[in-house]
């Protein structure tokens, strides 16, 4: 029997330890498929975040380093600056990128570093049990906003739109992983972002809306639906900037 979608070479056989319905597995696989299709697995170095995807190096069949929480873009920049012909990307969650690492992502984007950022937005801190994230929609209940996020907790931060205020980035995009059509679009966006790096164009970032059924207290199908009907209201999908 021939599999329609065999395991990408860039994905290891490490068993999936993410929660049922979690978007990280999908995102890991899409990154692996894109790396394979671009033929760059043997010259790719990934930087894993602190958060649920902290074990990303177990899933990817290429070089991966960890980084202190939020400093992922700095570590990626250090690698890329000394190995400019390698493909370097950081993979970060919303706490890592949009909260503790906000300074680092802005300055990395502003320098137009020729690397790619895969930004997973699941609207909360998954690893630590579902706290308020900078990306939590108003009204959403988390363990640290038991009455729901209010405006005094800060409003949701839209990262591609925020980075769009800078001159340097070449590609800023937001896609979603909640159904097959959107998953295919997400993959196309990732490919475009990595291609921009291969073409030496500069900084690219793709945000992916990703389900967290465990902390959202939803079934995986309900979580997928909620992204498509609710989360996209706070985080509209589509390319924010394309200068590739």
């Amino acid at each position: 029997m021939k599999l329609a979608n065999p395991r990408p070479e860039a994905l290891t056989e490490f068993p999936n330890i993410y929660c049922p319905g979690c978007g990280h597995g999908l995102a890991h696989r899409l990154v692996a498929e894109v790396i394979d299709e671009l033929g760059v697995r043997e010259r790719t170095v990934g930087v894993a975040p602190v958060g649920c995807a902290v074990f990303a190096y177990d899933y990817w069949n290429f070089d991966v380093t960890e980084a202190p929480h939020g400093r992922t873009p700095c570590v990626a920049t250090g690698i890329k600056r000394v190995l400019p012909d390698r493909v370097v990307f950081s993979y970060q969650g919303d706490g890592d990128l949009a909260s503790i690492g906000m300074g680092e992502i802005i300055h990395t984007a502003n320098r137009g570093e020729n690397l790619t950022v895969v930004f997973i937005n699941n609207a909360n801190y998954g690893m630590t049990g579902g706290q308020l994230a900078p990306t939590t929609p108003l009204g959403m209940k988390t363990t640290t906003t038991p009455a729901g996020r209010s405006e005094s907790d800060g409003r949701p931060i839209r990262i591609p739109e925020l980075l769009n205020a800078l001159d340097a980035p070449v590609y800023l995009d937001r896609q979603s992983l909640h159904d097959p059509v959107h998953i295919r679009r997400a993959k196309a966006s990732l490919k475009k972002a990595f291609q921009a790096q291969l073409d030496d164009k500069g900084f690219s970032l793709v945000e992916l809306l990703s389900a967290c059924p465990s902390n959202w207290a939803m079934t995986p199908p309900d979580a997928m639906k909620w992204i498509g009907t609710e989360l996209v209201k706070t985080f509209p999908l589509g390319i924010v900037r394309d200068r590739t």
Partner: protein
Amino acid sequence: MNRVLFKGNEVITEAAIAAGCRFYAGYPITPQNEITASMARRMPESGGVFMQAESEIAAINLCFGAAVAGTRAMTSTSSPGFSLMQEAISFLAGCEISCVIANVMRGGPGLGNIQPSQADYFQAVKGGGHGDYHNLVLAPFSVEEAYAMTLLAFELADRYRNPVILLADGMLGQLMEPVDLELGPPASFPTRDWKLDGAQGRKPRSIKSLLMNDGVLEKHNYHLAAKYRTMQKEVRWEIDRQEGSELLVVAYGSSARAAKAAVREARAQGLKVDWFRPRTLWPFPSEALKDAARRSGRVLTVEMSLGQMVEDVKLAVAGGTPVDFFGRPGGAVPTPAEILAAIRQSLSRRTTV
């Protein structure tokens, strides 16, 4: 011989280039700005990468990335910036990544001032960041030694895959002295069979300090501890001793310069005083110090702080020799005259015991 007049800060840059360092990231902070400025010029001239980071946190993590990719990397800062780097230094230690960090100490705590200080001893020597780990800590006391020790710092960082702290102070950073630029052996680069540069024709590698499985982190800590034991052989010190010594003055870095002047004056006045200078603060020259202290019968530790290294001096002599202390905090530099007065006081205590 190729003797050139250099400022302490600038000689660190020159030595880093000579050592094959090809990545530097730094953030402006006084009194070490000459390192950053000279790096901005020298790195591109030498085919290396210079980056002005958005913060000290970014600077050390940029170095982490460059070092992960196999490049000799360094950053420099002064006390408040060194505080910000502690998290990443713990990661460097845990991941066993080599990196050189120069801390040109200034007065603290807090924003303090920009005068020379030695109040970051605990932070550099006792860890500073979280977890069971040690930095190698080198303490130069002249511009020429700053050159030699920077060369050494890169060798040791690579040999042990460990962060190395070059612990200087604002006085040494600003001091100008002649330096022989032909000092030291040419840089040697151990095989980096751990670096991440793309898994071309080999199995992928990962670099991590997250070890969640049962017992794995404990095992990793024992592995690090074994490495720290082998690092003990890198201990270095300098001693100036005479027959019949009645007091051993112990100091490092800039305070060792003032102490040396005070000891010279004391001897001219007929006092029997020896001088001992730890050149590595971790590993600490405990054995040599213990022997020298026993010979003199009494110790006076001098620091530009209210007493930090003195704790390691006391541990070294283990109660076998009385230890006195003289220091000035907050960016104040002890003068040779003040130290000479402290020497006299120590000697008077010795005779009254």
